[in-house]
């Protein structure tokens, strides 16, 4: 067998799963001593172009509490047409359709390469995709214009039979009726009044009198289009209308006096959007897309008053508990998010403003429903426009890269239990025999709802080994986990993707090396980071850092090789070598550090961190830095101040930003215009190279990163300087006696100092 590296990569490509440990400690006690929990990063919809979905339904274990799906790990008795569930060991009869199977004639789900398989469910009427635009009209004229254009453009990207709806808001909230000819109609709501779903439906005329309801029951499916027809219409039918309607959208006409913020009823608008969909399309995939250009300033969910002289809350205010509206607003949005989630609708937030827009309060809307959160400076930037456009990108089948209303179910073999999950999901509160009492992340359940999914959406799923130390697992035993994801495909089909994986058990006492070698430090770093970020949402920053540090130290103590009290002797094996560095950068990352970030920014960063896959997450934790020079092809360099050299061009990707940094000399050359001289064409190429590479990243990254092109001494160079390891600072610059690199003006500890401390603590017997 190949190296673990290859094994890991192979597994990731096939199943979209990466475990922190690829050989599992066989007892509970040992598992806890491993410090990093047994967990995995699961990308449920990982793109598998090579995986054709099968057009039938999965075969389920007949034990009511199990219902695991038939998989390649099951033992099959081809003669008796029986199969044994590998989770509960129930023996099951194959259904009649499987009468013809044999060793040589296996159904796909029994073939080992189909450890991940996708079923298409043919039952039930396909329900259309629904896009409900919720648009803020308190925008500057050009912002609104740009937004209108983006929205109009989006119509052409939607599938023709998708339903669209429009809600606009400012001081009032307007729900636009789309079916009408001539006069454009809208229902208007006061922006200050919280309404229950029932009231909203009543006021929109969505509730039908009891009588017709009963009569119509048989024809329920046909009912839907009728009920919804006024507010949600198929794109192909109202294409023109809708374009005109958007074209006529005016800025909120209510006067805003000097020194005031416009009154913006975001809370009510969202509430109405949720209520509208709740009433018309419960349990159908739908996307509420909120476009807002400022903080909610009135009504339920208001984040800040309309007095400009009172600024919107900062981290400082939050720490001082000096926020008037935050708790109430958060509660309001949480309530909405939960309702939306319960109905399978996801909420996106596109917030474009120079100031904060209340993402902190609204984050749960996206986080709980799997929606997108996009933050920009203006709707009139390519950042927004391209990001928005990218949402509607399609895969090579021509399908949207989005799925709706997914439910993820996890089944484990009996040595394991499920501790929780972290990601854009909500608990479905399904208790079962395999649910642990110890919660990590969103726990207490074996099923989660993920209302909006795309091929990169990734959940961290945490497990607990419950096998007792005195009940050893027989040699060669394997633990199995099955992930069953039911979702609505963008083609409106319902599908089920089943991934079944198995890993070897190992006795930690006797086979620690095995386990150590099978450690996936990247996955572990991300999984630990998720735990840390998850904690940071509810705990004080320093506590989280302390917790992280302690975990790191314990890990080093467990797996490092050292002599007690001798830091210099400390060594880590290859499979752990990068882990401390990840932790170092994680500690400095905006996910855990709020300094210099607004609450909105923190929420934004954390939002994305909690849903991106492993690679992206790692970039977020430790940005990548490439160096371009005349000396050779571009090379990745250390994220360190020492990499900042005068004759280099640096390209840094932090996921959220792409920074191109010209070294001092390069900047001077460029200023001198050498690139325009034919004899210095190579310089021109050098300048162009990072731009091209950046463009490549920009093409695929979602959300579109902030693109920064700066140079030595430029004000925006701060983006780079704040990320690199401050190996040279004003404190130690001359101590090193070198003149390479750029000193960073910071008191932050450098990686070197961090590692020194770590070694010291790891080898000390004190803790």
């Amino acid at each position, binding site marked *: 067998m190949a190296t673990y590296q290859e094994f890991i990569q192979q597994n990731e490509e096939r199943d979209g799963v990466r475990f922190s440990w690829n050989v599992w400690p066989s007892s509970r006690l040992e598992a806890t001593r491993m410090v990093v929990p047994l967990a995995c990063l699961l990308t449920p919809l990982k793109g598998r172009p090579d995986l054709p979905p099968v057009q039938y339904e999965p075969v389920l274990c007949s034990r009511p509490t199990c219902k695991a799906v038939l998989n390649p790990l099951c033992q099959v008795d081809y003669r008796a047409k029986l199969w044994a569930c590998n989770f509960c060991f129930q023996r099951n009869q194959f259904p009649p359709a499987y009468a013809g199977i044999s060793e040589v004639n296996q159904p796909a789900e029994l073939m080992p390469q189909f450890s991940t398989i996708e079923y298409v469910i043919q039952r039930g009427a396909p329900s259309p995709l629904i896009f409900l635009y919720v648009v803020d009209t308190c925008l500057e004229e050009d912002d609104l214009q740009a937004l209108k254009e983006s929205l109009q453009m989006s119509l052409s990207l939607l599938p023709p039979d998708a339903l669209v709806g429009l809600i606009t808001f400012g001081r009032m909230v307007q729900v636009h009726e789309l079916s009408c000819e001539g006069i454009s*109609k809208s229902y208007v709501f006061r922006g200050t009044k919280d309404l229950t779903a029932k009231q909203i439906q009543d006021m929109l005329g969505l509730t039908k009198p009891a009588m017709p309801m009963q009569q119509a029951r048989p024809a329920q499916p046909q009912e839907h289009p009728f009920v919804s027809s006024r507010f949600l219409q198929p794109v192909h039918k109202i294409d023109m209308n809708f374009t005109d309607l958007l074209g006529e959208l005016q800025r909120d006409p209510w006067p805003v006096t000097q020194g005031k913020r416009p009154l913006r009823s975001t809370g009510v608008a969202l509430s109405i959007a949720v209520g509208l969909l709740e009433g018309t399309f419960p349990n159908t995939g739908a996307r509420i897309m909120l476009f807002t250009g400022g903080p909610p300033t009135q009504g339920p969910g208001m984040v800040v008053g309309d007095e400009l002289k009172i600024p919107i809350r900062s981290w400082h205010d939050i720490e001082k508990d000096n926020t008037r509206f935050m708790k109430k607003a958060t509660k309001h949005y949480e309530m909405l998010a939960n309702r939306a989630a319960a109905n399978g609708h996801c909420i996106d937030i596109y917030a474009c403003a120079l100031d904060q827009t209340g993402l902190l309060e609204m984050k749960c809307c996206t986080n709980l429903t799997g929606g997108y959160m996009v933050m920009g400076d203006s709707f009139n930037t390519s950042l927004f426009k391209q990001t928005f456009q990218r949402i509607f990108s399609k895969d090579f089948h021509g399908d949207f890269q989005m799925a709706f209303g997914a439910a993820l179910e996890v089944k484990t073999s009996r040595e394991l239990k499920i501790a929780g999950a972290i990601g854009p999901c909500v608990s479905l509160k399904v208790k079962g025999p395999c649910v642990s009492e110890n919660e990590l992340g969103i726990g207490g359940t074996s099923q989660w709802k993920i209302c909006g999914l795309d091929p990169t959406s990734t959940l961290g799923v945490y497990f607990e080994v419950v096998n007792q130390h005195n009940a050893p697992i027989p040699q060669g035993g394997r633990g199995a986990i099955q992930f069953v994801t039911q979702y609505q495909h963008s083609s409106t089909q319902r599908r089920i993707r089943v991934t079944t994986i198995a890993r070897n058990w190992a006795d930690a006492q006797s086979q620690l090396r095995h386990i150590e070698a099978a450690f996936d430090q990247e996955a572990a770093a991300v999984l630990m980071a998720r735990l840390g970020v998850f904690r940071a949402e509810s705990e004080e920053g320093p506590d989280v850092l302390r917790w992280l540090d302690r975990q790191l130290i314990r890990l080093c103590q467990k797996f490092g090789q050292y002599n007690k009290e001798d830091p210099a002797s400390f060594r880590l094996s290859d499979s752990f070598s990068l882990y401390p560095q990840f932790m170092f950068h994680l500690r400095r990352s905006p996910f855990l550090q709020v300094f210099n970030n607004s609450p909105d920014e923190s929420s934004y960063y954390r939002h994305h961190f909690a849903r991106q896959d492993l690679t992206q997450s790692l970039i977020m934790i430790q940005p990548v830095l490439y160096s371009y020079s005349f000396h050779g092809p571009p090379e990745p360099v250390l994220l360190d101040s020492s990499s900042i050299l005068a004759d280099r061009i640096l390209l840094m990707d932090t996921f959220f930003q792409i920074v191109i940094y010209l070294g001092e000399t390069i900047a001077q050359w460029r200023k001198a215009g050498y690139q325009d001289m034919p004899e210095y064409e190579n310089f021109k190429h050098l300048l162009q190279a990072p731009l091209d590479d950046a463009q490549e990243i920009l093409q695929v990254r979602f959300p579109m990163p902030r693109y920064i092109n700066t140079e030595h001494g430029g004000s925006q160079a701060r983006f780079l300087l704040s990320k690199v390891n401050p190996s040279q600072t004003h404190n130690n610059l001359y101590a090193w006696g070198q003149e390479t690199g750029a000193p960073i003006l910071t008191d932050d500890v450098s990686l070197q100092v961090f590692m020194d401390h770590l070694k010291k603590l790891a080898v000390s017997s004190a803790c």
Partner: protein
Amino acid sequence: MNVNQSAPPVPPFGQPQPVYPGYHQSNYGGQPGSTAPPTPYGAYNGPVPGFQQTPPQGVSRAPPSSGAPPASTAQAPCGQATYGQFGPGDIQNGPSSTVQMQRLPGSQPFGSPLAPVVSQSSVLQPYGPSLTSAEVTAQLAGMQISGAVAPAPPASGLGYGTPTSLASASGSFPNSGLYGSYPQGQAPPLSHAHGHPGVQPPQRSVPPQASSFIPPASGGPRMPSMTGPLLPGQGFGGLPVSQPNHVSSPPPQALPHGTQMTGPPGPPPPMHSPQQPGYQLQQNGSFGPARGPQPSYGSPYPGAPTFGSQPGPPQPLPPKRLDPDAIPSPQLNELPPQQKTRHRIDPDAIPSPIQVIEDDRNNRGSEPFVTGVRGQVPPLVTTNFLVKDQGNASPRYIRCTSYNIPCTSDMAKQAQVPLAAVIKPLARLPPEEASPYVVDHGESGPLRCNRCKAYMCPFMQFIEGGRRFQCCFCSCINDVPPQYFQHLDHTGKRVDAYDRPELSLGSYEFLATVDYCKNNKFPSSPAFIFMIDVSYNAIRTGLVRLLCEELKSLLDFLPREGRAEESAIRVGFVTYNKVLHFYNVKSSLAQPQMMVVSDVADMFVPLLDGFLVNVNESRAVITSLLDQIPEMFADTRETETVFAPVIQAGMEALKAAECAGKLFLFHTSLPIAEAPGKLKNRDDRKLINTDKEKTLFQPQTGAYQTLAKECVAQGCCVDLFLFPNQYVDVATLSVVPQLTGGSIYKYACFQVENDQERFLSDLRRDVQKIVGFDAVMRVRTSTGIRAVDFFGAFYMSNTTDVELAGLDGDKTVTVEFKHDDRLNEESGALLQCALLYTSCAGQRRLRIHNLALNCCTQLADLYRNCETDTLINYMAKFAYRGVLNSPVKTVRDTLITQCAQILACYRKNCASPSSAGQLILPECMKLLPVYLNCVLKSDVLQPGAEVTTDDRAYVRQLVTSMDVAETNIFFYPRLLPLTKSPIESTTEPPAVRASEERLSNGDIYLLENGLNLFLWVGASVQQGVVQSLFNVSSFSQISSGLSVLPVLDNPLSTKVRGLIDSLRAQRSRYMKLIVVKQEDKLEMLFKHFLVEDKSLSGGASYVDFLCHMHKEIRQLLS
């Protein structure tokens, strides 16, 4: 006895002459005492028992009348003259004279009809005749008694007792004499002129009487004209000659009545079924007698009780009250009770509104009314006259109940004459009269008294060479600001007095400064918001389509100020059912936008910009909207509506736009949708005549008052157009329009085909009329009296300021004054009504009306300067407000009592001593009883079975803001014969009295009361007439209920249609025409408006009521 004899004349009405002889003789002979008279009283008393007893009364009364004779003789000449007048005219002009005249005939008819019936049917035949006659006489006597006194001028009052009249007449004269002195003089000649001679002959008995009554000559002059035509009217036959007519018609009627009355005898005439006393008369259309009612009135009807207090005491009282004169009657008492019931008073002999109106027209219509003199009584509202403002406000702006106010409150209390002014601050003037000048006093604003804040007016006294002025209201001495200084001439008048409207005119306007504006900001131009019900009902009836179509053109006629090119008023549109739809009609839009607000519990305005727009700028969008509204809702199934939120929305819209304005609401049904102001159907006819009846007039919920208050604060006036198919609770829905100075229009069972013209006409008028917004009115008075009570459509947050969100030229405020100190005869009493308002162009102005009244220390002066029309206006409003808080019966009793007190006070203090049996009415108030009776039997105070609760509430609300002319016509409808006068004559035909007796079946009549318009077609109208009016060949082919006359090119058709148009033009609301055929189902409806007759709902006939009033007065006097 003589009196009795007089009865004979009666026959005219009554019937066949043959009867006559019989009657006369028997009556006279047998019953000197004329038992009959009493009966009438009895009737009032109500209960049947009353009758019997009553007779005695009657008797008693009769005597008095008889007693009277002497006097009469003296005056005889006059009397005759008058008599003559009456005869011819039926007209009663002359107070006294007319009265007599009428009575005579009246009484006769009764007698005769009754008699025949009774006699024939009943065993009593022999008696019958005699009795009847006797009764008649008795009645007459009674009447006389009552009327007898006929205070001089008006005094005709006496007329009743024709028979007796002789006697009574005499009595009356004396009384009348007081007044009479002046009137008489005039009268005689005139009356004579009128060819009394001719008349007289027929009525034999009359002469004597006549002589006695007539004195009041005043009537005389007018009579002439009247008489001619009138007679015919009276005479059912329609011929001028009274006799013939009488003869023919009476009998039939009489019969029916008789039957009813008598009860027992019942069977009499085969034709007449007992059921319809009055109406049907059988055959010949001799409606005349219409006595039906009376009889019924007397006994069967509870009507009596209505009068109230009296019923109880009947038996004992009568005797007591009656004069000793009654004694002779004992005989009568013996008569069978049944027969007694039927006495009758000659309706022609009692004061006739028609005559009074006609007289005033003739006397005062030609000369302009110059307002320079203090305390001048203006011509009647029914008279066309020009006004010249010379320092007092035109009567078009202010009318008072009396132009001579008692100096002390004691006097005022004694007289019980309410002191009230009916003010119509923005009244429209005829084109010949100039509208008030606008005065601009510059930045300092209008000059006012420092203490009482009264505005500069012609009554302010400049002193100290013009450097100071003394306030005429509070006597405070103020400095004249330098810029206003002017020297005085030798009379103490400012030299520039005639250059300044505020120093020389009764009415003028000031430009208000910013201090007079809300929030110290000049107002922006007002807005009109059209709010249209688009529920199923509204769509189904075609209302919405009709309305939208009309609005397209109507919007070009929004009120504009002066000659402004275009109206400054902005418009907005809202439609609603269970939810509200606002429309954005901004000119820049290609299509209107609709914004639906379903949160009716918490109404708000969803848009600011584009809701209220200039019509011309947004015309295309508005037109498009109006085109689409009917289409959009064409398929609606929504039947529920909201109401309060609609008003709330309009008000909020105006608030958001920071302007005043008017909402036009077009609403169809009871607002039962879940929302604030939701109403339930609480119509319960069982409550009528109970103590809880008042709840029918009260709003169901206080929510509307609160809402109205907010509207007033915002200057949001609400006009409501209702199109109900069933109960909509007008009482509650009208609260907001009422308190905001708006109008209500109601079109029950609206159908486009039938009601289109009426609705559109009302709508056009309502939209186009000039209106002032956000107004505050204050009435200041000189020391001694104070405005204490206000009636009308407005809101008051304190006791002095009348706040009106909107005020148009039709709205009237009635103000009642009370003494709080002594007044000075010399300086008189001054009123200044100041109205601060925003004009329709958004200009803030003050309109000032000044009026100076005389003060008196003699009650006679008060009674001589009263205006009955105004008085009725006040009393009606007072009563109509009273029903909100008291049982209707109490309200009615209060009215009757007050009226009786007024008249009794007069009788006691002003009339010359006379027999108590005489009814003496002040000249100025001789119509008070008839008008008051009309008020009492109006739908609000005495609803008939067919009158819905909504109708009552509606009428109640309408009356509240009516001016004097409107109340006048409303309570006493105008009945115009169409074929009597030559076709060529261009003037309006003279009206006839509103009584079935006045209709001739060969004639066509128009009846109007400001709200309704009927064309009554007699059964035997000439075929030619039918052809030329209706384009059908015979009476039977005229379709009943027709509402439009075919346009035919012949003189008659042209004339009638022209007349109808001109009548409509005179009224503030379009009157839908209803063609009623004689003896058709619809006739019931029509008869409801014949207010001198007994009404189906138990309302007394004029004659009965007069008797009743007389009794009341006597009771007070004794």
